[in-house]
């Protein structure tokens, strides 16, 4: 191999190695870090949510709504609309959850009533005692 060819090949090898050494950590660096939210539980007093009302909370960095349904008790649902991620709100006059972005409606079980969403709102497990509700 000629001297110049050897030099070129060496440089190409070194250049490629350098590039890969940069691209691999760069791709790792760009991956978003895992959420710092821990799998903790959240407890609220029952008194805070009288029947026919709802309370909006943040649980492990996710916005939730805890609803005290007349006759069927408490339920915790994610407020993130399954269409495009806007936050749904509780419509106490019509007993449903409404997404303000594209008029998606969900019932108080989280199922789609109308609108563009196709999946129901995720439900969160609750532990209910005499005075308190524990989420998670």
């Amino acid at each position: 191999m000629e001297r110049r060819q050897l030099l070129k090949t060496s440089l190409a090898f070194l250049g490629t190695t350098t590039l890969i050494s940069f691209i691999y950590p760069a791709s790792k660096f760009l991956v978003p870090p895992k959420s710092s939210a821990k799998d903790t539980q959240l407890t609220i007093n029952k008194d805070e949510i009288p029947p026919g009302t709802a309370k909006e909370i943040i649980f492990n960095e996710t916005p939730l709504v805890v609803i005290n349904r007349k006759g069927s008790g408490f339920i915790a649902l994610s407020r993130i609309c399954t269409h495009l991620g806007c936050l749904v709100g509780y419509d106490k006059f019509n007993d449903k959850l409404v997404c303000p972005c594209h008029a998606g409606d969900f019932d108080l079980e989280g199922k789609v009533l109308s609108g563009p969403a196709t999946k129901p709102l995720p439900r969160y497990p609750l532990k209910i005692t005499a005075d308190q509700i524990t989420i998670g």
Partner: protein
Amino acid sequence: MWGKIVHWIEVRIGLEELINKHLRQFKTPKGATFWSTLGFVTLIAFILQAVTGIMLLLYYIPHPEHAFKSVQTITNEIPYGWLFRLIHNVGGNIIVAVIIIHMVHVFLRVSYKKPREITWVTGVLMFLLVLLACITGQLLPWHQTGFWQTTVTSTIPSFLPVIGEGISSYMRGGASVSGITLSRFFSFHVVILPVFIVALMILHVLLIRRQGLSTSPAVEPEADASPPEEFRREPHLEGHPCFPHFSVKRSFMVMFYFTVLFFILTFFPNLFLPAEANIQADPLLTPEAIRPAWYFLAPYQLIKTIPNDVMGISLVVIFSLVLLFWPFLDAKDAGRNIRKRPMLLSLGLIVLALWAIFTIWGMYS
């Protein structure tokens, strides 16, 4: 397969013509050595700083309450965050060293003379802006070292009569270093200064491409005989094509740059990060020994040594102005061969020696 890809690109872009026109037909002079590649190395080093800087921006929060924590998160929690932070930190120091060596080389070859005065001026302006980028960058991690270095640096201009206080206040955005200073330094560091540096860089490269690389007076003594009275590009007929001959030299030096960078990263990762750089900025507690970065030690020690503050800062300003406009101050009729100009050679060596002495003095004083 590779040939097909190259052909596909060639049909659409005409890469071969571009390479022929701008690299093969662009001749480098016979005396172009590894030293002549330092401008290119600086360009690559600047691109590396820009890339790593943009990456750090993804996680950095420019707010006094979050800046330190966000930098600690980058260093300790984000995958390879420590690597990109260190490359940016160490690279910021090496780039200054590369520019200084590049300038010394250009000075010793007397390449700044007609018709390359503007090239020199844009180069020195870029150097000064890079130093400003270093000053503004040191505050961003909001650690003790950066905070108090900024306090000292932003106080020094206040020694200047009449305009001094105004400059200090303008730098800080108030009477002391605060969140406003952080916002200012952040915008200067990531937007304003890079925009000006890139603009000057384009002009600098454009001038070099238009005029051709300067010849070495030792190798091509005839070129040094009479400076041209009208524009002409130096053809360097006896020289080599820029590509692949000179490009191989450039690539080698870029690799050498990376070798130095990674040598420091591996064996001396904290070379430019003193212990106080791991402590959050405390405006009520000045650390025991606050020194500027190594490239500011000489002017810092000069100002400290001269009892009159106004005289000290004035000397630094005058030196910077002389450096900036040196091509216009150098004797017009003198030749470019520095071996035939002992006065100029002595002047250059004396300035370099003084700079080294003041730097070492500043390090240990």
